[in-house]
């Protein structure tokens, strides 16, 4: 019933938009659901992890098509650097939930979401809501492929997928065979809550040649532990989400004997379109960055910078200055 | 022997909240050491209210209560407790104190500051328990005693409190005849020992049995006072309870008279 409704809405909107009967097509989203979309997609709404979804759209050059703004708590400076018009767009999402009426008023041709219940709710209202999923590391490639189909930019999708595989292969080759015992022990931690919040970190730490101390093939997204456990793991490298946490870690007297603190290897995760340590289209850069802090002798800083310049140029069509590169690498200030 | 007025109630008036009628209306009574007074009246006559006023738990609208010459209004709870001991009806308790602990609580008014009972206090409590005859129950939880045993324990507590005036609120209400007898006998002994004892009840025969002074309370007013045989006749009792009563007398009853409702 909702599928027919979507069709009717789609046709009606196409009619209103172009004055002539428009085409509609059906695609399967990453949950296997059929979604009917208009041929021409000129207004896109991203809900949920807005910066992450926006990042994908930046790669497809669809900055102008994004119809919604960034919720206050998710806003990052570089989102507006890559898409200045975002600052003028209305925000349809807050911590209270979705402002559904505002969303419908935007008349989107496509709604991207990573949450099943939100997608269901919007589909029931007749909106063209597509569910994207990213659980396994390789899902990002499937995701980009699907977006490529939807936006009729298959070439860009394939380009990204090639780039993703090639970069990871290159990093792997430069690393060479790494003895498990010689891998640096890495802990990605939100120190204020003593949690490792994202399972994806286990993957990019491993691909960068490190060993994540929290990696135990768990299925849960995050894991919480005690201070004593942190000391027991004795990581060689600590990665934290913002600079304020670096200060907290360094100021904690009980951590001063931990290997990472003693050798000063406490790093802030960089942040571009999104925090690099979490799921983001910039993930290949995450792996390269991690490799460069774990094996600085094999991965020069200059090479990281030039790779960043080339990535943002190629996929976001933005030329970054030296200051901007440093700013991205410096991560956010935190509270 | 010096006869002293232990308790004096002068023109006591009590009003509950903003009600129009007084719950107690100009009640005046006096009690001497060694005297036993039975307060007789129907339900709602104001007996409990009077008891609360005598204990300093309720503030009267007018009038005075003097315990051993001191006005209740000017005394702290502690000072009142040193003069007047209270034996409530043995009700439900949520916590299972042992009899010994309960009786020991009677010594509160004699313990200074924030301290705990001394060895002497414990001795006094033990003696009270053995005097009343509940010493063998001292380690038993109060909640597991029978109604009669509970009442006796509460009396032991009042004895331990060592106050010259004892007020008992319907002490025999849930007791069988055997226990009733025990409690009444105890009251006679206490009075004989020099204490001033007031007991509220709605059974006139107890006044006769105790050969005590009687005060009739109805509608908040003291309508009569005197010896039981003088004050309690069939007419006055029927009037008191607002119902026809039969008077039971027996030559071998040694002067004890009972009243029962007359049914049709």
């Amino acid at each position, binding site marked *: 019933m909702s599928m027919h409704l979507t069709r009717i809405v789609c046709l009606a909107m196409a009619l209103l938009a172009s004055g002539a009967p428009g085409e509609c097509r059906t695609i399967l989203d990453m949950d296997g659901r059929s979604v009917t979309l208009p041929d021409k997609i000129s207004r896109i709404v991203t809900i949920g992890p807005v910066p992450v979804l926006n990042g994908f759209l930046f790669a497809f050059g669809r900055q102008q098509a994004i119809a919604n703004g960034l919720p206050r708590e998710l806003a990052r400076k570089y989102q507006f650097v890559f898409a200045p018009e975002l600052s003028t767009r209305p925000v349809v999402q807050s911590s209270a939930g979705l402002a559904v009426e505002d969303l419908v008023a935007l008349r989107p041709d496509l709604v991207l979401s990573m949450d099943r219940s939100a997608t269901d709710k919007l589909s029931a209202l007749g909106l063209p809501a597509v569910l994207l999923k990213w659980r396994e590391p390789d899902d990002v490639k499937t995701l980009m492929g699907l977006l490529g189909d939807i936006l009729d930019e298959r070439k860009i999708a394939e380009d990204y997928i090639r780039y993703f595989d090639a970069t990871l292969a290159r990093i792997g080759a430069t690393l060479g065979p790494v003895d498990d015992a010689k891998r640096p022990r890495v802990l990605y931690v939100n120190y204020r809550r003593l949690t490792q919040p994202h399972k994806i970190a286990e993957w990019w730490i491993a691909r960068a040649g490190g060993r994540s101390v929290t990696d135990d093939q768990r299925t849960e997204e995050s*894991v919480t532990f005690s201070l004593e456990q942190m000391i027991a793991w004795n990581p060689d490298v600590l990665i934290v989400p913002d600079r304020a946490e670096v200060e907290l870690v360094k100021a904690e007297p009980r951590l001063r004997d931990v290997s990472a603190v003693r050798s000063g290897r406490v790093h802030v995760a960089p942040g571009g379109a999104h925090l690099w340590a979490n799921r983001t289209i910039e993930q290949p850069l995450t792996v390269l960055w991690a490799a460069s802090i774990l094996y600085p002798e094999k991965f020069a800083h200059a090479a990281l910078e030039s790779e960043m310049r080339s990535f943002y140029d190629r996929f976001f069509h933005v030329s970054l200055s030296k200051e901007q590169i440093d700013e991205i690498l410096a991560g956010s200030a935190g509270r | 022997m010096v006869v002293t007025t232990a308790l004096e109630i002068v023109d006591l008036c009590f009003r509950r909240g903003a009600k129009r009628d007084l719950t107690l209306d100009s009640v005046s009574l006096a009690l001497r050491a060694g005297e036993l007074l039975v307060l007789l009246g129907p339900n709602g006559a104001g007996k409990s209210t009077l008891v609360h006023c005598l204990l300093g738990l309720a503030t009267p609208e007018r009038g005075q209560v003097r315990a051993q010459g001191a006005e209740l209004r000017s005394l702290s709870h502690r000072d009142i407790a040193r003069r007047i001991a209270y034996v409530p009806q043995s009700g439900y308790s949520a916590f299972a104190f042992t009899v010994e602990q309960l009786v020991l609580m009677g010594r509160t008014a004699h313990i200074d500051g924030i301290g705990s009972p001394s060895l002497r206090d414990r001795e006094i409590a033990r003696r009270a328990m053995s005097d009343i005859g509940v010493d063998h129950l001292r380690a038993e939880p109060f909640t597991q005693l029978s109604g009669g045993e509970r009442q006796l324990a509460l009396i032991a507590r009042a004895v331990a409190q060592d106050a010259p005036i004892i007020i008992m609120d319907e002490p025999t209400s849930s007791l069988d005849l055997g226990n009733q007898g025990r409690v009444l006998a105890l009251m006679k002994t206490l009075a004989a020992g020099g204490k001033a004892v007031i007991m509220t009840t709605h059974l006139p025969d107890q006044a006769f049995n105790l050969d005590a002074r009687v005060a009739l309370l109805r509608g908040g007013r003291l309508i009569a006072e005197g010896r039981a045989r003088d004050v309690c006749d069939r007419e006055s009792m029927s009037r008191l309870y607002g119902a026809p009563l039969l008077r039971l007398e027996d030559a071998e009853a040694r002067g004890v008279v009972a009243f029962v409702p007359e049914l049709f």
Partner: protein
Amino acid sequence: MRYWRVPPGVDIDARALMVGLVVVLGAMIVVSLAIGRYPLSLMTIAETLLGRHDPSQAGATAETIIFMVRLPRIATAIMVGAGLSIAGSAYQTVFRNPMASPSLLGVSAGAGFGASLALLFHLPTLGVEAAAFAGGLAAVGAAYLAARSVRSNSLITLILCGMVMSALFQALISLVKYVADPVDTLATITFWLMGSLAKANAMDAATVAAPVLLGGALLFALRWRIGLLALGEQEAASLGADVTRLRTIVILCATAMTAATVCVAGIVGWVGLLIPHIARMAFGMEPGRAFVATAALGALFVLGVDDVARSASAIEIPLGVMTAVIGAPFFLFLVMRTKGEQWS
């Protein structure tokens, strides 16, 4: 419940009991020092405690673990357990209700609100703890004022006002969560409320120890008079107790102690409800014995539960969750054993 009661006729000397419980607690502390995610041999622990300084890196870390991680956490757990149990026992006596818990008048909800608000404004840890303490006292104070404005001195009114305040502050907590950003602050608030000793340091131990020891000392000194309150207002007054003042002191102490535990450990339930019952059942109602038994059993319980929470696996289980998971079924078990009859 005859099963755990001391056989009649055997009069346990209060002093012997205290010594016994202290010994058990001491043994538990030793065991707790030996447990943890960081591997330490008993030899190392003993040597570190004796002050034999091992100059190597391992020695320095062992010192850090023993003196700066485990010992403070153990001390905090003991204070939290003792504090909550004593507060719960005091509340149950004052309100003459064996079902009363320390959160009856809203102190937990108030402290939770204070902490949530502080976390919303990104205050440092000290600020969060201060706000939690203030919030707890404010909630109970509000309940008191509300009861006074109704111009009633009765306990029922106070309890009702306490329930209202508890509900009000719970709603305020929800409001704070609503406004907080879901990415970071909301998770921090939720985690804080669940209760955890994961980062307990010496400062935390001191923060909770001060009110618990001071309040506990006062309640212990007054233990005998507080017992009178269990008889009810009128009976206690007729025995000569200053009911109003006693009640105020007891509620103030119990509230301060509970607020302090919420400050460092979040909202930990069931301890204040359960432990006083077990103490009463096993050791009787004599005030001195009951107090020591309650405090010691509470300390043992929370210490034991926290030992499990921090060493069972790499994942840290929130303390409040564990006390509920263990406490609720155990409470049901007690109800079944006593067949719902007389409590203690």
